[in-house]
């Protein structure tokens, strides 16, 4: 039997298993919106841990991470640095959000914000910005899945078919079972990813160079500029410290503001579970080390892939690994893509319906659930169309999406901790910050010290929020009591 046939069989088996777990998970869950969006607030530690980890580590980490290590060297360390920093504040913020969720019945981030700052327009604005940030993120995942499948099947399964099959499965279980399916498939896929990444990350440097230290000694001897922080740009010039540092900052600030991650606070069974998840989260971050090692192992390897994002499949195929290993690797990369894609699709539907449509039209629970399922299909279809574009620079789109997402941070912090903040203040801040970020995204040559546009947005956002809040009248004490006790 030809290698690609064996590989395809392994992938098919893996996808079938994922689908089964996803469909099984929905049984026993209540038919309500809380059931679909927040899994009846029932997730225990194991599920929470992998849900969070697997939704953070996407095709970006699995394909983009090694790609950066391979082409930009030390620049990739920024990805390593931001996760722990971004997650730690959630030790306090998470339980507080969860408590308010239980008290007021919130299931999305925008509900929490507009609970404190009542405004339909604010809710609609958050839903819109979330969706703008979500679409390129889903697109990246789909394209990632398609690329991996195409590469390892020698082009016998093209991108359009690979991404359609992988995401057909994701959509099937997200539609049928919502949050519960996302939880259980992520647990399964999360374990899978960790095992595959460590095995390959340790195997390749040993097999090709005789050890990890030996590999880096050789890289330092032949390509010293690569490992000199902060690494290189995409074109091989030295990267700037301004860009490196603000990439860490914007990603750390934006990380927990992603609606699909923020919503985890509402799915946790109790605060204890959530705190444990936060504590253990940096261990997931260390999982990037083997992923980077895979990328670094390609540096001195003869030949190069068509694009640095393909370094992982390239290394797997060029080192004559057995078909079984190639198949398992492919399943691991698919896990990374699908476990983020499903959470994104699920969250985008919840956000658009709960925070967008529902604010302006009154829908029954049943109609809401139907509409959410419709949005999952629609978002999936839009992303699928974009995913077929061979020139789409998705890593760049994702970095820009972070510029939008991190603008939610001052709003959330003001809602939770600043009594004097007003509705007008947060709306003005959000608009000013987003416009600034968008402006610098369009005009990158104007950015001071090559800083990330998201940070420049925040520099305008925060004073606007504070200034407008202080000149508008404070919220009534009675309203504030519901949020602060």
């Amino acid at each position: 039997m030809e290698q690609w046939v064996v590989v395809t069989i392994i992938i098919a088996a893996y996808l079938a298993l994922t689908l089964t777990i996803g469909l099984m998970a929905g049984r026993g869950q209540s038919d309500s919106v809380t059931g679909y969006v927040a899994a009846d607030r029932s997730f225990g530690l194991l599920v929470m841990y992998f849900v969070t980890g697997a939704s953070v580590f996407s095709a970006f980490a699995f394909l983009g991470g090694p790609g950066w290590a391979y082409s930009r060297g030390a620049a990739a360390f920024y990805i390593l640095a931001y996760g722990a920093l971004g997650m730690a504040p959630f030790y306090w913020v998470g339980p507080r959000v969860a408590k308010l969720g239980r008290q007021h019945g919130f299931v999305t981030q925008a509900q929490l914000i507009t609970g404190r700052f009542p405004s339909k327009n604010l809710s609609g604005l958050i839903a819109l910005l979330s969706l703008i940030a979500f679409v390129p993120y889903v697109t990246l995942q789909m394209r990632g899945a398609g690329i991996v499948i195409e590469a390892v099947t020698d082009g016998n399964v093209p991108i359009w078919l690979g991404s359609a099959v992988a995401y057909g499965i994701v959509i099937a279980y997200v539609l049928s079972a919502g949050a519960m399916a996302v939880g259980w498939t992520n647990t399964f896929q999360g374990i899978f990813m960790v095992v595959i990444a460590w095995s390959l990350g340790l195997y390749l440097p040993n097999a090709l160079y005789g050890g990890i230290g030996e590999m880096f000694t050789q890289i330092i001897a032949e390509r010293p500029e690569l490992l000199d922080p902060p690494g290189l740009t995409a074109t091989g010039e030295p990267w700037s410290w301004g860009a490196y540092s603000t990439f860490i900052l914007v990603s750390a600030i934006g990380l927990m503001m992603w609606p699909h991650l923020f919503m985890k606070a509402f799915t946790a069974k109790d605060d204890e579970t959530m705190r444990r998840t936060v504590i253990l989260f940096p261990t997931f971050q260390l999982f990037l080390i083997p992923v980077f090692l895979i990328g670094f192992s390609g540096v001195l390897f003869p030949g190069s892939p068509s694009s640095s994002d393909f370094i992982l499949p390239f290394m797997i195929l060029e080192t004559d690994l057995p078909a079984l290993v190639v198949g398992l690797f492919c399943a691991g990369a698919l896990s990374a893509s699908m476990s983020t894609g499903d959470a994104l699709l699920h969250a985008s539907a919840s956000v658009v319906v709960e925070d967008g449509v529902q604010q302006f039209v009154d829908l029954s629970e049943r109609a809401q659930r139907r509409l959410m399922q419709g949005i999952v299909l629609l978002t999936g279809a839009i992303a699928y169309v974009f995913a077929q574009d061979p020139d789409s620079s998705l890593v760049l789109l994702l970095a820009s999406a972070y510029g939008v997402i991190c603008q939610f941070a001052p709003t959330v912090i003001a809602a939770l901790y600043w009594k004097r903040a007003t509705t007008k203040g947060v709306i003005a801040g959000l608009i000013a910050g987003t416009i600034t970020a968008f402006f610098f995204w369009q005009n990158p040559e104007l950015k001071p010290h090559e800083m990330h546009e998201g940070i420049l947005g925040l520099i305008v956002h925060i004073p606007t929020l504070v200034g407008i809040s202080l000149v508008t009248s404070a919220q009534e004490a009675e309203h504030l009591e519901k949020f602060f006790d």
Partner: protein
Amino acid sequence: MNLKTARILAAAYHILMLYFVTWPGLLPFAKAEPLVFGLPFTMAWIAAWISGSVVCLILLDTVEKRYRTKDGADD
């Protein structure tokens, strides 16, 4: 340890971490050699801060738990 002290220390750790993994705190440690456990120095340096973060949060949680069980409050 007192709850407030523990929280301040945990927050301080993460602020220090932010300083030491970005400019300018990272500058003295921004180098490839010596290799630590086979990894470039900067990579090992960041990994060490991440591991420290786990330890720091576990210690904080131990203190917090003692206070939570004592007065039954959830924060």
